[in-house]
């Protein structure tokens, strides 16, 4: 009894009420719009009738996950300049999507990647392979969302174990999805974008007004060659021992990209360290930076749940304007999280000594409490708002992911492969069972990842998408010589290699954890000795995109050339549908032709 009451006594009522309102509003809106739409296809039709503004907000709302809301600020605080590549590439990846993939895919009339895979190659087998990757990438992407949930709840209820938050949030959203389904989610997602933007920007403006602006906060850090910072701050707290030095933090090629080399240097005898670092540090971190850029930019163009959302607006001009607005909405949002990181470094350096849910990942939630000390209630309200934003972040992305993964399992696996003859009622039940199943697995995985950084995990999901779906979509759209075998080999090899490499580095990081996870993964501890001896291999496994994306493209070209006889017979018509303007009405013609063919 006492154990239950104790944490509740320490809870800030403002934080609790704002978070509760967000959760209740999300669930309520989900149910409300689920009731107002009648058929399953209402989901897409609703998308078609939604205006550009709402649709763009909805896409942005789903895209901005816990990694964007909490992870980027935490990573900028812990690693400095190099972490800025994350927000920039998250936002700019959309440009690649717009330039090469969006238009053709929309003309083709495919709503999911498995749909496209089957339609482009006339191969049901390829649909199955594509579905597997929807699940792989989805699970990798849910893990950081779960960590965000665990961190936030542990913050709101001090003393609550990390896993309780994961289970609780996972259960609520799973229930929501399995009852409400995918109908009418557009409204909820759009609403959550604006919560998130408000929750990230309002505290930043107040914090900057009180403690000094972005440039002043950044100017308090010394650059190499400077003896004193140009804009020294009185309020700046002394850095703790674990914090990176000013010069390394503010400059490119800092702690994030040089981790592997630093570990390798530490394993060497003391007299060789300086020479080793001078030789390897900068070239290797340049390599790391490029690999990260490739993963994020190409990965955005290949994330399955983003692509699905992207096509809720299939009208030509409107879809393009929507993309433009998505890029603006996302870009505006991404200016703010790094500011949290910069201010956090100056005012809350004690977070550097925390690990897991108590480390820099919670800087977004923790920083507004500084205002509570100065302004009382106003500070508490701002803390409440950021917590509400965090809730909106992992709830919207997790429900979007859950819907797309459940859809893949219930529609593609159950409905198309296991029981093609199942009735609609059976499929509906399959949807609900799948939702619970996938929600359960996601919660289980989420319990393991407390020691890993939110943003790092998302980066790996992007790397896997970059090595599997991006080459598939890009080549299928622009090269008519692609065959199913080439596409499948390239996608599988690239994606699985990236998946394996990412899993290896995660296991070895978990093995060093001081908590229970260290014991579970203790078998992978020797890997860390290997990484120390081979820093280059460590970087290539950490950030696999730089070799996995070209590998995948290369295999696609070679295998397709070898199996050139299997290029689909109506490839010219397919290409025409992909590239000719919609006004010519070719899609209609193509689909009629196909149904006529099927009737023979």
């Amino acid at each position: 009894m006492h154990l239950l009451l104790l944490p509740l006594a320490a809870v800030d009522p403002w934080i609790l009420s704002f978070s509760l309102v967000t959760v209740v509003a999300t669930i309520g809106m989900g149910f409300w719009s689920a009731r107002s739409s009648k058929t399953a296809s209402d989901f897409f039709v609703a998308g078609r009738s939604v205006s550009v503004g709402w649709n763009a907000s909805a896409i942005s709302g789903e895209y901005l996950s816990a990694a964007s809301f909490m992870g980027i600020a935490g990573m900028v605080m812990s690693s400095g300049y190099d972490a800025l590549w994350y927000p920039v590439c998250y936002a700019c990846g959309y440009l690649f999507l717009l330039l090469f993939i969006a238009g053709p895919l929309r003309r083709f009339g495919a709503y999911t990647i498995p749909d496209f895979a089957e339609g482009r190659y006339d191969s049901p087998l390829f649909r199955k392979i594509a579905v597997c990757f929807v699940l792989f990438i989805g699970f990798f992407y849910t893990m950081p969302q779960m960590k965000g949930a665990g961190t936030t709840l542990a913050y709101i209820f001090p003393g609550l174990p990390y896993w309780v938050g994961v289970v609780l949030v996972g259960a609520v959203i799973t229930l929501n999805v399995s009852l409400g389904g995918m109908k009418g989610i557009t409204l909820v997602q759009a609403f959550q974008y604006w919560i998130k933007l408000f929750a990230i920007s309002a505290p930043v403006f107040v914090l900057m007004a009180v403690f000094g602006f972005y440039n002043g906060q950044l100017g308090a850090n010394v650059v190499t060659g400077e003896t004193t910072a140009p804009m020294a701050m009185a309020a700046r707290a002394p850095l703790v021992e674990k914090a990176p030095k000013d010069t390394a933090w503010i400059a490119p090629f800092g702690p994030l990209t040089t981790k592997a080399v630093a570990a390798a240097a530490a394993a060497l005898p003391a007299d060789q360290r300086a020479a080793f670092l001078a030789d390897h540090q900068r070239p290797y971190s340049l390599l790391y930076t490029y690999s990260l850029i490739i993963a994020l930019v190409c990965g955005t163009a290949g994330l399955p749940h983003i692509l699905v959302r992207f096509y809720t607006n299939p009208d030509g001009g409107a879809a393009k304007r929507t993309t433009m607005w998505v890029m603006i909405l996302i870009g505006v949002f991404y200016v703010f999280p790094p500011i949290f990181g910069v201010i956090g470094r100056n005012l809350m350096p004690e977070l550097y000594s925390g690990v897991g849910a108590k480390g820099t990942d919670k800087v977004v939630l923790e920083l507004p409490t500084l205002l509570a000390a100065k302004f009382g209630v106003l500070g508490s309200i701002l803390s409440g708002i950021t917590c509400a934003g965090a809730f909106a972040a992992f709830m919207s992305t997790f429900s979007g992911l859950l819907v797309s993964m459940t859809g893949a399992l219930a529609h593609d696996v159950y409905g198309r492969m296991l029981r093609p003859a199942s009735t609609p009622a059976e499929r509906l039940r399959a949807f609900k069972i799948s939702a619970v199943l996938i929600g359960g697995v996601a919660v289980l995985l989420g319990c393991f990842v407390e020691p890993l950084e939110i943003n790092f995990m998302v980066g790996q999901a992007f790397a896997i998408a970059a090595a599997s779906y991006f080459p598939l979509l890009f080549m299928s759209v622009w090269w008519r010589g692609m065959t199913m075998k080439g596409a499948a080999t390239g996608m599988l090899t690239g994606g699985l290699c990236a998946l394996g490499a990412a899993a290896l580095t995660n296991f070895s990081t978990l093995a060093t954890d001081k908590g229970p996870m260290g014991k579970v993964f203790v078998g992978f501890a020797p890997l860390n000795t290997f990484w120390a001896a081979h820093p280059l291999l460590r970087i290539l496994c950490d950030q696999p995109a730089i070799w996995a994306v070209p590998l995948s493209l290369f295999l696609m070209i070679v295998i397709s050339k070898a199996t050139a006889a299997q290029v689909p017979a109506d490839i010219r018509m397919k290409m025409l549908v992909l590239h000719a303007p919609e006004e010519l009405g070719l899609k209609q013609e193509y689909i009629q032709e196909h149904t006529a063919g099927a009737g023979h």
Partner: protein
Amino acid sequence: MSSPTPPDNDQIHSESFLRLLMRRQLKLSIACAATFLVVLLGLPLLNYFAPALMATRVAGFTWSWLILGVLFFPFVWIISWLFIRRSIALEAAEVKSVKR
């Protein structure tokens, strides 16, 4: 899209039309992507080869921080705006050339 069959059937389905179509669209996409990639991939190179220049202060920011943390977003918006304008114009021209 009132009539499922377009007016000049043969021209649309000809090999030369498809080639022209894809080449024009790809050219536009590649031009935009190249502008973007030169800046995106050039920035690490600048950081690598001209660290002192990029560490120069601009109102508290360093050049490298200001470019990546703030200026990069509007730059991408401009590229995407130009692309959308051009590609809508391109599609209109394609439709016109076929329907004539």
